[in-house]
């Protein structure tokens, strides 16, 4: 093994978090290598062209959580990143009506009144509650989670910070916070609103990406997780990365290479090499070995430790906790190339809200039934979708006049039931097609002519997402965002500071605090911990006012 195979740090996986860690380490002067199993970088933040002329955001499709502190630290706009907010959204009903979520506040109030006058002011109070909770939680995103069971100085200091912030809330809001973190989005919305359609529209954020139903405890937090981001300071706003979500990964990759880093694609980590409880490097699928005293895994905690680490290098209780970690695939996706913009007969022609997120689930009961199917190992017969046509805003995604549609679908199980047996193997080409047909049937509720406009479609099941991206069971968050595996319990109790039982080995993906979404916070927080341990005082993004 030559000197050129030795690095100061190796990152396993070129997802957006791995690349973020890599950027910070390289900018602190370390010689850093990123290895990636796919021939492209980005993990679940990718833009790929599968049909000539069209670009898909194949997995993640909208951007809000990406921390602005990190974008600024790494100067990502200089590397081509541009995030463009989109306006509003709508939920369409089977009887030809719709609820439009206007970005214009006055229009939104009028629209709510059209459906239920009592809900107009309720919406403002709902927003106030959510924003208040967001303000409370946002500062914790770029900090390591304090462990209340530890008596280390760092943990105590962080704990004190948390207590201070919580104290600032006052007793009533603190109670509300605890309720919020543990209750269901269904219950929360029922407390605020009368109208079923409005509740259904708002409930989507509470279930996207989870193996939970709208009445499962913990889904109110999931809504918060989708609201706590921002676009240019507008909390809760979402946008598109110009050129698709891969533009984020590309900017991070370019930033990393500009800082002197090296990326190898096409062969992933086969094994983390451990000697005497310390990490010494990685062995790749292609047989190559690279050495480094620091190795960070961007893979989820299960994949990292159950598939690529020797069990005897790990304490048994740790392995058991990792095995217990909930990481359930619950969503699929259709990426569609369209010959023209489909018709929306219910909506006024050219309505702004058609440029936002579109849905067709009318009530919480309908959403809960969709979840019931999933529990039985079937995709929802009447699925929920989060559908957008980014090419209306981003001119780079499709030829002029043509469009690209992204349809996130819930629920779809990882282990599909067939003849009484649930297995990933049951996702045959036939099953995938039938799944897509179910989704198209539902889209027809919104766009009756959708099928005639389709030029190409990519169908992605949880199984596909696991196979391609490497996310266990195709869970988009690298693990459920439930209270039992958040904060100091993420990924497993005792290991919330990005370190692992193996010295020099770190976990930098969304399995770590603060969790999933294209946030880059786990990657940046991990870099901060690593640099701290190396005695390098390089500044890593901290929440700024």
């Amino acid at each position, binding site marked *: 093994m030559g000197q050129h195979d030795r690095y100061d740090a190796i990152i396993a996986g070129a997802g957006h978090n791995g690349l973020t860690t890599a950027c910070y380490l390289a900018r602190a002067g370390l010689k850093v290598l990123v290895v990636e199993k796919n021939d492209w970088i980005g993990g679940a933040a990718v833009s790929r062209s599968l049909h000539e002329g069209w670009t898909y955001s194949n997995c993640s499709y909208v951007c809000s959580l990406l921390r602005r502190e990190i974008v600024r630290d790494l100067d990502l*706009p200089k590397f081509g990143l*541009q995030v*463009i907010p989109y306006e509003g959204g709508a939920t369409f009903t089977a009887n030809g009506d719709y609820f439009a979520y206007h970005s*214009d506040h006055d229009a939104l109030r009028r629209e709510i009144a059209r459906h239920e006058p009592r809900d107009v002011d309720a919406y403002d109070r709902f927003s106030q509650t959510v924003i208040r909770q967001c303000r409370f939680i946002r500062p914790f995103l770029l900090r390591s989670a304090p462990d209340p069971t530890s008596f280390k100085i760092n943990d105590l200091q962080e704990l004190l910070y948390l207590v201070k912030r919580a104290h600032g809330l006052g007793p009533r809001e603190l109670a509300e916070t605890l309720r919020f973190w543990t209750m269901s989005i269904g219950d929360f919305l029922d407390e605020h609103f009368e109208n079923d359609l409005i509740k259904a529209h708002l409930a989507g954020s509470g279930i996207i990406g989870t193996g939970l139903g709208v009445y499962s405890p913990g889904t109110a937090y999931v809504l918060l997780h989708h609201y706590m981001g921002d676009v*240019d300071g507008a909390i809760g706003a979402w946008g598109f990365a110009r050129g698709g979500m891969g533009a984020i990964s590309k900017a991070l990759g370019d930033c990393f290479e500009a800082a002197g880093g090296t990326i190898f694609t096409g062969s992933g980590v086969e094994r983390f090499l451990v000697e005497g409880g310390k990490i010494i490097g990685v062995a790749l699928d292609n047989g190559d070995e690279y050495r480094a005293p620091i190795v960070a895994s961007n893979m989820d905690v299960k994949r990292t430790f159950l598939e690529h680490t020797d069990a005897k290098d790990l304490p048994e209780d740790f392995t058991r906790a990792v095995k217990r970690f909930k990481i359930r695939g619950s969503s699929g996706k259709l990426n569609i190339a369209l010959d023209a913009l489909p018709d929306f007969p219910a909506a006024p022609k050219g309505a702004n809200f058609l440029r936002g997120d579109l849905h067709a689930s009318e009530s919480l009961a309908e959403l809960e039934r969709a979840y019931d199917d999933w529990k039985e190992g079937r995709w929802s017969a009447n699925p929920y979708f989060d559908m957008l046509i980014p090419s209306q*805003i981003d001119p780079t995604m499709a030829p002029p006049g043509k469009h690209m549609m992204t349809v996130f679908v819930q629920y779809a199980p990882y282990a599909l039931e067939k003849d009484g047996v649930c297995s990933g193997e049951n996702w045959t080409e036939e099953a995938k097609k039938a799944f897509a047909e179910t989704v198209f049937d539902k889209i027809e509720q919104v766009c009756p002519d959708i099928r005639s406009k389709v030029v190409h479609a990519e169908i992605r099941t949880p199984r596909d997402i696991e196979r391609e991206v490497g996310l266990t069971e195709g869970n988009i968050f690298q693990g459920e965002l439930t209270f039992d595996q958040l904060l100091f319990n993420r990924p497993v109790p005792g290991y919330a500071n990005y370190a692992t039982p193996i010295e020099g080995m770190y976990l930098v993906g969304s399995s770590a605090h603060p969790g999933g979404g294209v946030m880059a916070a786990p990657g940046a927080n991990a870099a901060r911990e690593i640099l701290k341990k190396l005695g390098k005082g390089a500044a890593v993004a901290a929440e700024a006012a």
Partner: protein
Amino acid sequence: MMDGRIETRDVAAVPVGLIETPVFSRLDQISTAKQWGNWAGYISPLVLDTMEFEYFAIRNQSTLLDVSPMHKYRVTGPDAETMLNRMVTRDLRKVAPGRVAYAMWCDEEGMVIDDGTLFRFAENDFRLCCQESMHGWLLDAAWGFDVEVIDESHSVAGLSLQGPTSFSVLQAAGLGAAGSLKPFDLVKLEPDLWVSRTGFTGDLGYELWVPWDRLTKLWDRLWAQRAPWGMRAIGTHALDMVRIEAGFVAAKVDFQPVLTASRLGRGRTPIELGFERLVHFDKGHFNGRRALLKQRDTGPRYNLVRLDIGGFKPAQDALIYHRKRREVGHVTSGIWSPTAKRNIALAELRAPFGGEKTDDLWAEVYVNEEGRWDKRLVPVTVQTKPFFRNDRARATPPRAF
């Protein structure tokens, strides 16, 4: 020649209050925000729909803005070049016909009267576009020269088509010949239609100039092509954001045109505004030359600089301190830049700050947090380059998006 201001049937009466440009009815129809401003006496949209989305259309798709209210003066005749060259600080002999030049002009003390763009149609044919009324000054400056000065402010109208898909819109509207234009090029594409590759955005963009009564037709022609390219009509608020990103200065905001300021000492020289490169001392005499020569040796009194400001709150009007104690200047234009993802500003600092001294500078930013004022002292860094730079702005032929 038609004049937008005057009812020719009743020349004795001039309208009181704001008047309409030719495309006002179009704007009024699409305006949901109903936010109108006063641009040189004309009704001009501040925001048509949402400032945020208008801003992003400039940086992501394309936008249409009616720039007809701009002051426009035609200078023609055998001495046109000599006369204008004596007026502005840059050397116009280097500006060939078919080119546009950004220029400043000063009084005898070297204080900037205004800045603007000079369009050179032919050897002896120029048009000056600027924010301030300049007819009188031009007539004074023309004294003794064989030139004719005509105020075209109300007879020539213009549309500014800006953004990465702006060329695609032109092409779709049958004006693809503009593709050969390099930045600051100017060409007559059709009878009565001049197109220049200019703008106030720092991005790819064009300005189209037609007689006043032809503007509506031009608007409709471009507007018909908006769909596939996401073109939006915009107001001036969004434009103000992008011009700060591009590092362009605005009269009456970042500097006070010396002829309009009643207080003494408000004038600034091109050197103080950061435009020494546009002062060509070697071209012979021009207005303000002696004073500017002197300042070149003694140094400026002020420095207008670009600042990268800490934190995320826009620093409009913030005071700038050295070592957190000594007040050395203030922000003249400050925004959060959604494209650069930085808190950016133009600021005037007392020399030597912003010049030789750029360390340990701080901005005092005031933030109103729902009724409680928070005062934040944040670090600032002086930047030499514009905050927005994208090679699509300079690529020729232009890209589709």
